[in-house]
């Protein structure tokens, strides 16, 4: 067990709380940087996919895990980001005074994709500010359906169900959107997004988000402008998910509305809940889970009797089952379990099971309004 001797307020603010952080996260960073030099192409692709999903997960985590606003429509922002990126870098945009449609370089198109998604987030965020819980989930769900419909019907831009080909990006002669270069691009952006999220969470707005999650009425009495903070949370969450979508467009190479369905939204929500709601670690753990589960099931199918293995809807069923089990037995998800294991070894041999026992919540005020 490590006991920290605090002599400076900055110790509570800085990201690395003690030297152990440098060791563990330094080692992790070293491993992920070295990985493409040792792994085969397929695994590099899988890791890249993991980073993209994790980034979308971080986006939803800020909204669902930290602000307490559950969104069932994050695939919409993912899709907006992806299509924006595809249109900007592949089809080009007709601008005045230029004959050819303008193709944007990725350093401009990717931020634009994030900004477009963020604007969509504000557009949905403002009207649904007064909704919470299940009503908000339904509103965002409806929004996702609308976006899905737009993606399939607005054929002049999105090419409908025929699909949209996404061109590869090049820097000089190196292809940026494949193999190791794309791996590093996704990794770099993911690290950047995580750092920005950590920064946000140790700032007033981040604390205000958590305050809204736990008690809106007292957050308001402490001077938190509910409308502004919720809209900010929506915009940031959508922007980050949109950026992930932009990367996803290059990962897929071919976009069709079927990639951005309600199932995708649910998958993101499962990611957040199973990974561990209310922690950035959870987004990463959840992404690993969401990516590994279908593969694990595919392997498992070979060992199962045909009657079970061939049953349609097996995967969503297992997804749902795990979600329910996690909510009942481990409400803080994989990250919660990880904390317990860590604590067990830190306290060994005097670990007390009751440390993490959930306390009975005291009665809350009658809900005002």
């Amino acid at each position, binding site marked *: 067990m490590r006991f920290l001797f605090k002599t400076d307020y900055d110790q509570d603010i800085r990201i690395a709380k003690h030297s152990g952080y440098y060791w563990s996260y330094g080692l992790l960073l070293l491993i992920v940087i070295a990985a493409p030099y040792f792994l085969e192409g397929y695994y590099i692709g899988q890791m890249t996919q993991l980073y993209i999903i994790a980034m979308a997960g971080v986006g939803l985590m800020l909204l669902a895990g930290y602000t307490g606003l559950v969104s069932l429509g994050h695939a919409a922002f993912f899709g907006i980001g992806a299509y924006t990126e595809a249109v900007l870098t592949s089809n080009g945009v007709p601008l005045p005074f230029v004959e050819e449609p303008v193709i944007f370089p990725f350093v401009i198109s990717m931020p634009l994709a994030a900004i477009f998604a963020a604007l969509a987030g504000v557009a949905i965020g403002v009207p649904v500010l007064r909704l919470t819980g299940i009503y908000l989930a339904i509103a965002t769900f409806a929004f996702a359906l609308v976006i899905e419909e737009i993606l399939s019907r607005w054929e002049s831009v999105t090419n409908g169900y025929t699909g949209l080909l996404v061109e590869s990006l090049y820097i000089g002669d190196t292809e940026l959107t494949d193999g190791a270069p794309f791996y590093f691009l996704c990794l770099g952006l993911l690290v950047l997004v995580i750092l920005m999220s950590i920064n946000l969470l140790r700032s*007033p707005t981040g604390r*205000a988000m*958590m305050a809204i999650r*736990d008690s809106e009425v007292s*957050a308001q*009495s402490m*001077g938190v402008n509910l409308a502004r903070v919720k809209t900010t949370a929506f915009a940031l969450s959508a922007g980050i998910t949109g950026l992930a979508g932009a990367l996803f467009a290059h990962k897929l190479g071919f976009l069709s509305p079927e990639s951005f369905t309600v199932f995708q939204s649910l998958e993101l929500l499962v990611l957040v809940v199973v990974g561990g709601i209310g922690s950035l670690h959870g987004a990463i753990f959840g992404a690993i889970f969401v990516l590994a589960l279908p593969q694990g099931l595919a392997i498992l199918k070979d060992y199962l009797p045909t009657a079970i293995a061939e049953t349609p809807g097996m995967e969503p069923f297992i997804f749902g089952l795990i979600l329910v089990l996690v909510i009942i037995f481990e409400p803080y998800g994989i990250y919660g379990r990880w904390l317990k294991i860590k604590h067990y070894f830190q306290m060994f041999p005097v670990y007390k099971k009751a440390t993490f026992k959930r*306390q009975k919540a005291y009665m809350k005020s009658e809900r*005002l309004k």
Partner: protein
Amino acid sequence: MSFFKAENLAINFGGVKAVDGVNFEINKGECFTIIGPNGAGKTTIFNLISRIYDSTEGKMTFDGQDITKVPPHAIASLGIARTFQNIELFEHASVLQNLLVGRHCHSKTNIFSELAFTPSMRRTEIAHREKVEEVIDFLDLQHYRESLIMNLPYGVRKVVELGRALCTEPKLILLDEPSSGLNVEETQDMSFWIDDIKKDLGITVLMVEHDMGLVSEVSDQVLVLNYGRMLAFGSPQDVQNDPEVIKAYLGE
């Protein structure tokens, strides 16, 4: 000119007149207490002052400013802080984070400097932390600084909530039943703190309280409500001997 003034304050919920034509004035630096039987409209008055409810009628002035139509999130920066009857803390956050949320009305950062966590951002965070530490010292919360609220006993939560209100550096603090759920010793501590808040910090206190011992110990003026109407007003002793008040509490 009084510090806080409520004129003809009224609110209806449907046909129920929860508060009906209440007038009172609070002088700077005093402890003003509202008492009354259950459902008398005490907490409703608090919710009207912190602007969670819109009053149907009447006017409130605070420090020379009309606050009847001020948005609820702007109340804190005007210098009015409050606690809640059934603790409304941020359960999944530490005591420190809860107190830092109390500093929210004093932070003027924009989202971009927050995302980048600029050096000036770090300096303001440390400045906020210093203020928070003053409150922690004042309320003897050092031991609980890092604890999550959900792991704290009720009595400590009550103190943390008081601390969070103090972190906003209020001029007027609204305490909704500060002693409810506390044992005799904790109530005694609370009465000392309320006295200190009034005398040392110079903060005007408006409180709702049932414990008459605490009320007579710290209050300068007492207002008695019943069914949303004013029943009596005066010093704690006067009020306790008022026949109308005795009738409202004990019946005839």
